[in-house]
Protein backbone atom coordinates (compact mmCIF):
# COMPACT_ATOMS: atom_id res chain seq x y z
CA UNK A 1 0.00 0.00 0.00
CA UNK A 2 2.85 2.35 -0.76
CA UNK A 3 2.28 5.79 -2.20
CA UNK A 4 2.29 5.59 -5.95
CA UNK A 5 3.77 9.03 -6.39
CA UNK A 6 6.67 10.56 -4.56
CA UNK A 7 5.93 13.98 -3.15
CA UNK A 8 7.27 16.88 -5.15
CA UNK A 9 8.73 14.89 -7.99
CA UNK A 10 7.56 15.59 -11.51
CA UNK A 11 5.54 12.67 -12.75
CA UNK A 12 6.11 10.72 -15.89
CA UNK A 13 2.70 11.04 -17.38
CA UNK A 14 1.34 8.62 -19.90
CA UNK A 15 0.01 10.63 -22.80
CA UNK A 16 -2.98 8.41 -23.36
CA UNK A 17 -6.14 9.75 -21.76
CA UNK A 18 -6.96 8.37 -18.35
CA UNK A 19 -10.69 8.64 -18.85
CA UNK A 20 -12.45 8.91 -22.19
CA UNK A 21 -16.17 9.51 -22.52
CA UNK A 22 -17.78 9.28 -25.94
CA UNK A 23 -21.25 10.36 -26.95
CA UNK A 24 -22.76 10.20 -23.46
CA UNK A 25 -26.47 10.86 -23.29
CA UNK A 26 -28.96 10.48 -20.50
CA UNK A 27 -32.72 10.72 -20.87
CA UNK A 28 -35.31 10.58 -18.17
CA UNK A 29 -38.35 9.80 -20.28
CA UNK A 30 -38.76 12.75 -22.58
CA UNK A 31 -36.44 14.93 -20.53
CA UNK A 32 -32.88 15.12 -21.80
CA UNK A 33 -30.36 15.62 -19.01
CA UNK A 34 -27.22 15.08 -21.06
CA UNK A 35 -26.82 15.06 -24.80
CA UNK A 36 -23.89 13.70 -26.75
CA UNK A 37 -21.12 14.60 -24.32
CA UNK A 38 -17.58 13.56 -25.13
CA UNK A 39 -14.49 14.43 -23.16
CA UNK A 40 -11.04 13.21 -22.19
CA UNK A 41 -9.27 13.54 -18.89
CA UNK A 42 -5.53 13.02 -18.71
CA UNK A 43 -3.35 12.16 -15.74
CA UNK A 44 -2.69 15.14 -13.51
CA UNK A 45 -5.26 17.23 -15.33
CA UNK A 46 -8.07 19.12 -13.62
CA UNK A 47 -11.20 19.71 -15.66
CA UNK A 48 -14.01 22.00 -14.55
CA UNK A 49 -17.56 21.44 -15.70
CA UNK A 50 -19.40 24.72 -15.27
CA UNK A 51 -22.97 25.68 -15.92
CA UNK A 52 -26.04 26.88 -14.18
CA UNK A 53 -28.62 24.75 -12.38
CA UNK A 54 -30.29 22.39 -14.77
CA UNK A 55 -27.36 22.43 -17.19
CA UNK A 56 -26.80 18.72 -16.69
CA UNK A 57 -23.43 19.01 -15.01
CA UNK A 58 -24.34 16.93 -11.96
CA UNK A 59 -25.86 14.25 -14.18
CA UNK A 60 -22.67 14.25 -16.22
CA UNK A 61 -20.63 13.70 -13.09
CA UNK A 62 -22.88 10.83 -12.06
CA UNK A 63 -22.45 9.27 -15.51
CA UNK A 64 -18.68 9.74 -15.61
CA UNK A 65 -18.30 8.13 -12.19
CA UNK A 66 -20.58 5.27 -13.34
CA UNK A 67 -23.05 5.92 -10.58
CA UNK A 68 -25.70 6.21 -13.24
CA UNK A 69 -25.96 4.33 -16.50
CA UNK A 70 -26.04 6.42 -19.67
CA UNK A 71 -28.84 6.03 -22.20
CA UNK A 72 -26.19 5.93 -24.92
CA UNK A 73 -22.45 6.36 -25.13
CA UNK A 74 -19.44 4.74 -23.51
CA UNK A 75 -16.69 5.49 -21.05
CA UNK A 76 -13.29 3.88 -21.04
CA UNK A 77 -10.69 4.14 -18.31
CA UNK A 78 -7.02 3.24 -18.21
CA UNK A 79 -6.64 1.16 -15.07
CA UNK A 80 -3.58 0.78 -12.89
CA UNK A 81 -2.39 -2.19 -14.88
CA UNK A 82 -2.15 0.07 -17.95
CA UNK A 83 -5.04 -1.58 -19.78
CA UNK A 84 -7.89 0.64 -20.98
CA UNK A 85 -11.30 -0.90 -20.37
CA UNK A 86 -14.88 -0.07 -21.24
CA UNK A 87 -16.34 0.73 -17.83
CA UNK A 88 -19.83 -0.50 -18.53
CA UNK A 89 -18.49 -3.88 -19.61
CA UNK A 90 -16.91 -4.37 -16.20
CA UNK A 91 -18.85 -6.23 -13.53
CA UNK A 92 -20.54 -4.14 -10.89
CA UNK A 93 -18.08 -5.56 -8.37
CA UNK A 94 -15.14 -4.26 -10.40
CA UNK A 95 -16.73 -0.84 -10.85
CA UNK A 96 -17.46 -0.62 -7.17
CA UNK A 97 -13.88 -1.55 -6.40
CA UNK A 98 -12.66 1.14 -8.79
CA UNK A 99 -14.82 3.74 -7.14
CA UNK A 100 -13.34 2.77 -3.77
CA UNK A 101 -9.67 2.59 -4.71
CA UNK A 102 -8.51 4.30 -7.87
CA UNK A 103 -11.26 6.91 -7.83
CA UNK A 104 -12.67 9.34 -5.34
CA UNK A 105 -15.98 11.13 -5.18
CA UNK A 106 -16.41 14.26 -3.12
CA UNK A 107 -20.06 15.19 -2.60
CA UNK A 108 -21.27 18.70 -2.23
CA UNK A 109 -22.94 17.75 1.03
CA UNK A 110 -20.28 15.94 3.05
CA UNK A 111 -22.97 14.03 4.91
CA UNK A 112 -23.54 12.03 1.72
CA UNK A 113 -19.91 11.06 1.51
CA UNK A 114 -19.29 10.32 5.18
CA UNK A 115 -20.70 7.97 7.77
CA UNK A 116 -21.90 10.43 10.34
CA UNK A 117 -22.19 7.77 13.04
CA UNK A 118 -18.61 6.59 12.65
CA UNK A 119 -15.53 8.36 14.04
CA UNK A 120 -13.23 10.40 11.80
CA UNK A 121 -10.60 7.68 12.02
CA UNK A 122 -13.14 5.02 11.15
CA UNK A 123 -14.31 7.03 8.17
CA UNK A 124 -10.81 7.45 6.80
CA UNK A 125 -9.89 3.84 7.58
CA UNK A 126 -12.96 2.36 5.89
CA UNK A 127 -11.46 2.15 2.42
CA UNK A 128 -8.34 0.55 3.81
CA UNK A 129 -10.40 -2.04 5.62
CA UNK A 130 -12.40 -2.62 2.46
CA UNK A 131 -9.22 -3.46 0.55
CA UNK A 132 -8.00 -5.87 3.21
CA UNK A 133 -6.01 -3.97 5.81
CA UNK A 134 -6.31 -5.98 9.02
CA UNK A 135 -3.93 -4.33 11.47
CA UNK A 136 -5.69 -1.86 13.75
CA UNK A 137 -2.52 0.02 14.64
CA UNK A 138 -1.55 0.53 11.00
CA UNK A 139 -5.03 1.57 9.99
CA UNK A 140 -5.17 4.11 12.77
CA UNK A 141 -1.71 5.47 11.98
CA UNK A 142 -2.58 5.90 8.31
CA UNK A 143 -5.87 7.59 9.21
CA UNK A 144 -3.99 9.88 11.60
CA UNK A 145 -1.52 10.83 8.86
CA UNK A 146 -4.30 11.73 6.45
CA UNK A 147 -6.18 13.78 9.02
CA UNK A 148 -2.99 15.75 9.49
CA UNK A 149 -2.65 16.30 5.76
CA UNK A 150 -6.12 17.78 5.61
CA UNK A 151 -5.38 19.85 8.69
CA UNK A 152 -7.73 18.19 11.13
CA UNK A 153 -6.23 18.14 14.63
CA UNK A 154 -4.92 14.84 15.93
CA UNK A 155 -7.22 14.72 18.90
CA UNK A 156 -10.33 14.68 16.71
CA UNK A 157 -9.61 11.23 15.29
CA UNK A 158 -12.14 9.53 17.54
CA UNK A 159 -14.79 12.21 17.21
CA UNK A 160 -17.77 11.75 14.96
CA UNK A 161 -18.26 14.13 12.02
CA UNK A 162 -21.57 15.30 13.40
CA UNK A 163 -19.45 17.31 15.83
CA UNK A 164 -17.44 18.90 12.98
CA UNK A 165 -17.98 22.18 11.15
CA UNK A 166 -18.91 22.14 7.46
CA UNK A 167 -15.38 22.89 6.31
CA UNK A 168 -13.94 20.18 8.54
CA UNK A 169 -16.46 17.67 7.26
CA UNK A 170 -15.49 18.50 3.71
CA UNK A 171 -11.81 18.05 4.49
CA UNK A 172 -12.61 14.76 6.18
CA UNK A 173 -14.45 13.68 3.07
CA UNK A 174 -11.39 14.45 1.01
CA UNK A 175 -9.12 12.50 3.36
CA UNK A 176 -11.52 9.57 3.21
CA UNK A 177 -11.21 9.54 -0.57
CA UNK A 178 -7.47 10.14 -0.80
CA UNK A 179 -6.39 7.34 1.52
CA UNK A 180 -6.19 4.79 -1.31
CA UNK A 181 -4.16 7.19 -3.51
CA UNK A 182 -6.78 7.54 -6.23
CA UNK A 183 -5.66 8.78 -9.62
CA UNK A 184 -8.98 10.40 -10.46
CA UNK A 185 -11.32 12.30 -8.19
CA UNK A 186 -14.78 13.58 -9.02
CA UNK A 187 -15.95 16.61 -7.07
CA UNK A 188 -19.42 18.04 -6.98
CA UNK A 189 -19.31 21.70 -5.92
CA UNK A 190 -16.63 21.00 -3.30
CA UNK A 191 -16.65 24.56 -2.01
CA UNK A 192 -20.40 25.02 -2.14
CA UNK A 193 -21.95 26.42 1.00
CA UNK A 194 -18.64 27.11 2.71
CA UNK A 195 -17.42 30.44 4.02
CA UNK A 196 -14.90 32.20 1.83
CA UNK A 197 -11.96 31.66 4.16
CA UNK A 198 -12.91 28.02 4.49
CA UNK A 199 -13.10 27.73 0.70
CA UNK A 200 -9.58 29.08 0.43
CA UNK A 201 -8.27 26.40 2.73
CA UNK A 202 -10.02 23.68 0.78
CA UNK A 203 -8.76 24.95 -2.58
CA UNK A 204 -5.22 25.06 -1.26
CA UNK A 205 -5.55 21.49 -0.09
CA UNK A 206 -6.87 20.28 -3.42
CA UNK A 207 -4.24 22.24 -5.30
CA UNK A 208 -1.56 20.58 -3.18
CA UNK A 209 -2.84 17.10 -3.91
CA UNK A 210 -3.05 17.83 -7.61
CA UNK A 211 0.47 19.16 -7.88
CA UNK A 212 2.18 16.78 -5.44
CA UNK A 213 0.36 13.60 -6.32
CA UNK A 214 -0.51 14.14 -9.95
CA UNK A 215 -4.17 13.79 -9.13
CA UNK A 216 -6.60 14.14 -12.03
CA UNK A 217 -9.95 15.64 -11.21
CA UNK A 218 -13.31 16.49 -12.73
CA UNK A 219 -14.86 19.31 -10.75
CA UNK A 220 -18.42 20.43 -11.18
CA UNK A 221 -18.75 24.01 -10.08
CA UNK A 222 -20.76 27.11 -10.76
CA UNK A 223 -17.97 29.20 -9.21
CA UNK A 224 -15.78 30.47 -12.03
CA UNK A 225 -13.13 31.74 -9.64
CA UNK A 226 -12.64 28.20 -8.40
CA UNK A 227 -12.46 27.01 -11.98
CA UNK A 228 -9.79 29.54 -12.83
CA UNK A 229 -7.64 28.84 -9.80
CA UNK A 230 -7.78 25.08 -9.76
CA UNK A 231 -8.45 23.89 -13.26
CA UNK A 232 -6.52 23.39 -16.47
CA UNK A 233 -9.56 23.15 -18.69
CA UNK A 234 -13.17 24.26 -18.54
CA UNK A 235 -16.20 22.67 -20.16
CA UNK A 236 -19.27 24.86 -20.30
CA UNK A 237 -22.60 23.06 -20.18
CA UNK A 238 -25.98 24.34 -21.13
CA UNK A 239 -29.19 22.35 -21.45
CA UNK A 240 -27.32 19.08 -21.34
CA UNK A 241 -24.71 19.89 -23.96
CA UNK A 242 -21.14 21.05 -23.85
CA UNK A 243 -21.28 24.34 -25.69
CA UNK A 244 -17.70 25.45 -25.23
CA UNK A 245 -14.46 24.00 -23.98
CA UNK A 246 -10.83 24.99 -23.79
CA UNK A 247 -8.08 26.08 -21.46
CA UNK A 248 -9.45 27.58 -18.28
CA UNK A 249 -7.99 31.02 -18.77
CA UNK A 250 -8.98 30.93 -22.43
CA UNK A 251 -12.63 30.22 -21.76
CA UNK A 252 -12.77 32.85 -19.05
CA UNK A 253 -10.81 35.60 -20.80
CA UNK A 254 -11.87 34.97 -24.40
CA UNK A 255 -15.30 33.34 -24.22
CA UNK A 256 -16.66 32.62 -27.65
CA UNK A 257 -20.21 31.37 -27.20
CA UNK A 258 -22.96 33.82 -26.28
CA UNK A 259 -23.91 31.81 -23.21
CA UNK A 260 -20.32 31.63 -22.01
CA UNK A 261 -19.96 35.36 -22.43
CA UNK A 262 -23.10 35.80 -20.38
CA UNK A 263 -21.81 33.52 -17.63
CA UNK A 264 -18.44 35.19 -17.44
CA UNK A 265 -19.80 38.69 -17.45
CA UNK A 266 -22.34 37.87 -14.77
CA UNK A 267 -19.90 37.33 -11.98
CA UNK A 268 -18.27 40.03 -9.97
CA UNK A 269 -14.68 39.07 -10.47
CA UNK A 270 -12.96 36.24 -12.24
Amino acid sequence: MKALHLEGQPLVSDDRPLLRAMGLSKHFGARVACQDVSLDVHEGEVVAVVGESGSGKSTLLALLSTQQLPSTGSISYRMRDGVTRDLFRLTEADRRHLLRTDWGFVHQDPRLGLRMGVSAGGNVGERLMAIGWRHYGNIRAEAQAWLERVEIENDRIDDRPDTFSGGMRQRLQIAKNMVTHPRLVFMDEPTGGLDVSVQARLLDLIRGFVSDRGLAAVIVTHDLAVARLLCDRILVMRQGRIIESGLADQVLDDPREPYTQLLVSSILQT
Partner: protein
Amino acid sequence: MASAGSDPIRLDGVAKTFVMHLRGGARLPVVCGVSFSVRSGECVALSGPSGIGKSSILKLIYGNYRVDAGRVLVTGETGTVDVASASPRQMLGLRRTTLGYVSQFLRTIPRVGALEIVAAAAREAGVSPQEARARAGDLLAKLNVAHRLWHLPPATFSGGEQQRVNIARGLAARRPILLLDEPTSALDDMNRATVVELIEARKREGAAVLGIFHDADIRERVADRIIDVTQFAPGA
Protein backbone atom coordinates in the same frame (compact mmCIF):
# COMPACT_ATOMS: atom_id res chain seq x y z
CA MET B 1 9.53 19.61 -36.79
CA ALA B 2 11.88 22.49 -35.93
CA SER B 3 14.72 23.21 -38.28
CA ALA B 4 18.04 23.94 -36.63
CA GLY B 5 17.78 27.71 -36.82
CA SER B 6 14.08 28.31 -36.00
CA ASP B 7 13.26 31.47 -34.11
CA PRO B 8 11.55 30.68 -30.82
CA ILE B 9 8.64 32.98 -31.68
CA ARG B 10 7.26 33.55 -35.14
CA LEU B 11 3.93 35.18 -35.92
CA ASP B 12 2.56 34.97 -39.43
CA GLY B 13 -0.53 36.94 -40.48
CA VAL B 14 -2.20 36.71 -37.10
CA ALA B 15 -5.60 38.33 -36.62
CA LYS B 16 -8.01 38.60 -33.70
CA THR B 17 -11.55 39.99 -33.43
CA PHE B 18 -13.86 39.88 -30.45
CA VAL B 19 -17.52 39.16 -31.13
CA MET B 20 -19.62 40.57 -28.34
CA HIS B 21 -22.83 38.63 -28.23
CA LEU B 22 -24.08 40.58 -25.26
CA ARG B 23 -24.03 43.69 -27.44
CA GLY B 24 -25.97 42.22 -30.27
CA GLY B 25 -22.99 40.56 -31.88
CA ALA B 26 -20.90 43.72 -32.21
CA ARG B 27 -17.50 42.95 -33.69
CA LEU B 28 -14.41 44.46 -32.12
CA PRO B 29 -11.32 43.86 -34.25
CA VAL B 30 -8.16 43.90 -32.20
CA VAL B 31 -5.22 43.21 -34.50
CA CYS B 32 -4.68 41.94 -37.99
CA GLY B 33 -1.84 40.87 -40.20
CA VAL B 34 0.58 40.50 -37.28
CA SER B 35 3.88 39.11 -38.53
CA PHE B 36 7.20 39.21 -36.73
CA SER B 37 9.69 36.97 -34.98
CA VAL B 38 11.86 37.01 -31.92
CA ARG B 39 15.26 35.33 -31.89
CA SER B 40 17.01 33.54 -29.04
CA GLY B 41 18.90 35.94 -26.81
CA GLU B 42 16.94 38.87 -28.20
CA CYS B 43 14.48 41.19 -26.49
CA VAL B 44 11.76 42.73 -28.62
CA ALA B 45 9.57 45.48 -27.21
CA LEU B 46 6.03 46.09 -28.41
CA SER B 47 5.15 49.78 -28.50
CA GLY B 48 2.12 51.83 -29.31
CA PRO B 49 -0.67 53.73 -27.57
CA SER B 50 -2.82 52.17 -24.88
CA GLY B 51 -5.52 49.83 -26.26
CA ILE B 52 -3.73 49.20 -29.55
CA GLY B 53 -3.42 45.47 -28.87
CA LYS B 54 0.03 45.02 -27.31
CA SER B 55 -1.22 42.88 -24.41
CA SER B 56 -3.47 41.02 -26.79
CA ILE B 57 -0.50 39.93 -28.87
CA LEU B 58 1.18 38.50 -25.77
CA LYS B 59 -2.04 36.73 -24.87
CA LEU B 60 -2.38 35.30 -28.37
CA ILE B 61 1.10 33.83 -28.09
CA TYR B 62 0.38 32.44 -24.62
CA GLY B 63 -2.83 30.86 -25.76
CA ASN B 64 -4.91 32.99 -23.47
CA TYR B 65 -6.74 34.52 -26.46
CA ARG B 66 -7.82 32.39 -29.38
CA VAL B 67 -6.31 33.12 -32.77
CA ASP B 68 -8.78 33.85 -35.57
CA ALA B 69 -6.36 33.76 -38.51
CA GLY B 70 -2.70 33.16 -39.17
CA ARG B 71 -0.10 31.11 -37.35
CA VAL B 72 1.70 31.54 -34.04
CA LEU B 73 4.74 29.29 -34.20
CA VAL B 74 6.47 28.60 -30.92
CA THR B 75 9.66 26.56 -31.01
CA GLY B 76 11.10 24.94 -27.92
CA GLU B 77 13.09 21.84 -27.07
CA THR B 78 10.23 19.57 -28.10
CA GLY B 79 9.79 21.10 -31.55
CA THR B 80 7.52 23.70 -33.13
CA VAL B 81 3.87 24.10 -32.25
CA ASP B 82 1.32 26.37 -33.90
CA VAL B 83 -0.53 27.85 -30.96
CA ALA B 84 -3.40 28.78 -33.27
CA SER B 85 -4.27 25.14 -33.80
CA ALA B 86 -2.78 23.55 -30.67
CA SER B 87 -4.93 21.30 -28.50
CA PRO B 88 -5.40 22.33 -24.86
CA ARG B 89 -3.06 19.55 -23.89
CA GLN B 90 -0.34 20.76 -26.23
CA MET B 91 -0.84 24.28 -24.94
CA LEU B 92 -0.45 23.13 -21.33
CA GLY B 93 2.73 21.31 -22.28
CA LEU B 94 4.05 24.40 -24.03
CA ARG B 95 3.35 26.56 -21.00
CA ARG B 96 5.07 24.07 -18.78
CA THR B 97 8.24 23.72 -20.83
CA THR B 98 8.60 26.70 -23.11
CA LEU B 99 6.43 29.76 -22.46
CA GLY B 100 7.03 31.95 -19.46
CA TYR B 101 4.54 34.74 -18.86
CA VAL B 102 4.40 37.67 -16.52
CA SER B 103 0.91 39.12 -16.79
CA GLN B 104 -0.34 42.26 -15.20
CA PHE B 105 -2.26 40.41 -12.54
CA LEU B 106 -1.12 38.14 -9.79
CA ARG B 107 -3.88 35.60 -9.27
CA THR B 108 -3.25 32.95 -6.68
CA ILE B 109 -5.11 30.80 -4.22
CA PRO B 110 -5.53 32.97 -1.13
CA ARG B 111 -3.50 31.02 1.42
CA VAL B 112 -0.32 30.23 -0.48
CA GLY B 113 2.84 32.11 0.63
CA ALA B 114 5.00 34.11 -1.78
CA LEU B 115 7.97 31.75 -1.67
CA GLU B 116 5.76 28.75 -2.36
CA ILE B 117 4.09 30.51 -5.30
CA VAL B 118 7.44 31.10 -6.94
CA ALA B 119 8.85 27.68 -6.07
CA ALA B 120 5.71 25.97 -7.42
CA ALA B 121 6.20 27.72 -10.75
CA ALA B 122 9.69 26.20 -11.00
CA ARG B 123 8.51 22.75 -9.93
CA GLU B 124 5.90 22.79 -12.70
CA ALA B 125 8.72 22.89 -15.20
CA GLY B 126 10.35 19.87 -13.64
CA VAL B 127 12.81 21.52 -11.30
CA SER B 128 13.46 19.57 -8.09
CA PRO B 129 11.78 20.89 -4.93
CA GLN B 130 15.05 21.87 -3.26
CA GLU B 131 16.37 23.67 -6.33
CA ALA B 132 13.00 25.33 -6.87
CA ARG B 133 12.94 26.67 -3.33
CA ALA B 134 16.53 27.90 -3.68
CA ARG B 135 15.76 29.74 -6.91
CA ALA B 136 12.62 31.24 -5.43
CA GLY B 137 14.52 32.59 -2.42
CA ASP B 138 17.26 33.92 -4.67
CA LEU B 139 14.82 35.78 -6.94
CA LEU B 140 12.74 37.21 -4.12
CA ALA B 141 15.90 38.42 -2.42
CA LYS B 142 17.19 40.04 -5.61
CA LEU B 143 13.82 41.72 -6.07
CA ASN B 144 13.96 43.03 -2.51
CA VAL B 145 10.92 41.18 -1.25
CA ALA B 146 11.47 41.20 2.49
CA HIS B 147 12.13 37.86 4.11
CA ARG B 148 9.24 38.27 6.51
CA LEU B 149 6.86 38.31 3.52
CA TRP B 150 8.05 35.03 2.05
CA HIS B 151 5.54 32.89 3.93
CA LEU B 152 2.67 35.34 3.68
CA PRO B 153 0.10 35.22 0.87
CA PRO B 154 0.63 38.16 -1.51
CA ALA B 155 -2.99 39.29 -1.41
CA THR B 156 -2.13 41.76 1.34
CA PHE B 157 1.07 43.05 -0.29
CA SER B 158 1.44 46.44 -1.92
CA GLY B 159 1.07 46.69 -5.71
CA GLY B 160 4.82 46.85 -6.14
CA GLU B 161 5.43 43.82 -3.93
CA GLN B 162 2.81 41.81 -5.79
CA GLN B 163 4.38 42.74 -9.10
CA ARG B 164 7.78 41.60 -7.90
CA VAL B 165 6.39 38.26 -6.77
CA ASN B 166 4.73 37.96 -10.17
CA ILE B 167 8.04 38.63 -11.92
CA ALA B 168 9.85 36.12 -9.74
CA ARG B 169 7.18 33.57 -10.59
CA GLY B 170 7.65 34.18 -14.29
CA LEU B 171 11.43 33.87 -14.12
CA ALA B 172 11.81 30.96 -11.71
CA ALA B 173 11.44 28.22 -14.29
CA ARG B 174 13.89 29.80 -16.77
CA ARG B 175 11.82 28.92 -19.78
CA PRO B 176 13.29 29.67 -23.23
CA ILE B 177 10.56 32.21 -24.04
CA LEU B 178 9.60 35.06 -21.74
CA LEU B 179 6.52 37.22 -22.29
CA LEU B 180 6.39 40.35 -20.12
CA ASP B 181 3.38 42.60 -19.77
CA GLU B 182 4.35 45.88 -18.10
CA PRO B 183 6.67 44.24 -15.56
CA THR B 184 7.93 47.45 -14.02
CA SER B 185 4.89 49.70 -13.92
CA ALA B 186 4.58 49.71 -10.12
CA LEU B 187 8.26 49.58 -9.25
CA ASP B 188 10.68 52.16 -7.96
CA ASP B 189 14.00 52.89 -9.71
CA MET B 190 16.05 50.43 -7.70
CA ASN B 191 13.76 47.53 -8.43
CA ARG B 192 13.38 48.53 -12.05
CA ALA B 193 17.14 48.30 -12.41
CA THR B 194 17.01 44.82 -10.87
CA VAL B 195 14.36 43.72 -13.33
CA VAL B 196 16.48 45.03 -16.21
CA GLU B 197 19.41 42.99 -14.92
CA LEU B 198 17.28 39.89 -14.64
CA ILE B 199 16.04 40.32 -18.20
CA GLU B 200 19.59 40.83 -19.43
CA ALA B 201 20.65 37.67 -17.64
CA ARG B 202 17.89 35.67 -19.32
CA LYS B 203 18.89 37.06 -22.69
CA ARG B 204 22.46 35.99 -22.09
CA GLU B 205 21.20 32.52 -21.30
CA GLY B 206 19.52 32.44 -24.71
CA ALA B 207 15.91 33.22 -23.87
CA ALA B 208 13.73 35.00 -26.38
CA VAL B 209 12.06 37.93 -24.63
CA LEU B 210 8.99 39.79 -25.86
CA GLY B 211 7.74 42.57 -23.65
CA ILE B 212 5.61 45.64 -23.16
CA PHE B 213 7.46 48.40 -21.29
CA HIS B 214 5.56 51.53 -20.55
CA ASP B 215 8.70 53.32 -19.44
CA ALA B 216 10.67 54.54 -22.47
CA ASP B 217 13.88 54.49 -20.50
CA ILE B 218 13.57 50.79 -19.67
CA ARG B 219 12.58 50.07 -23.25
CA GLU B 220 15.78 51.69 -24.46
CA ARG B 221 17.94 49.75 -22.05
CA VAL B 222 16.48 46.33 -22.52
CA ALA B 223 15.08 46.08 -26.05
CA ASP B 224 17.17 45.12 -29.05
CA ARG B 225 14.27 45.93 -31.36
CA ILE B 226 11.03 47.83 -31.04
CA ILE B 227 7.92 46.84 -32.96
CA ASP B 228 5.19 49.45 -33.26
CA VAL B 229 1.89 47.63 -32.94
CA THR B 230 0.05 50.48 -34.62
CA GLN B 231 0.96 48.88 -37.95
CA PHE B 232 -1.23 45.91 -37.00
CA ALA B 233 -4.30 47.93 -36.11
CA PRO B 234 -7.33 46.79 -38.09
CA GLY B 235 -8.02 49.12 -40.93
CA ALA B 236 -4.46 50.51 -40.76
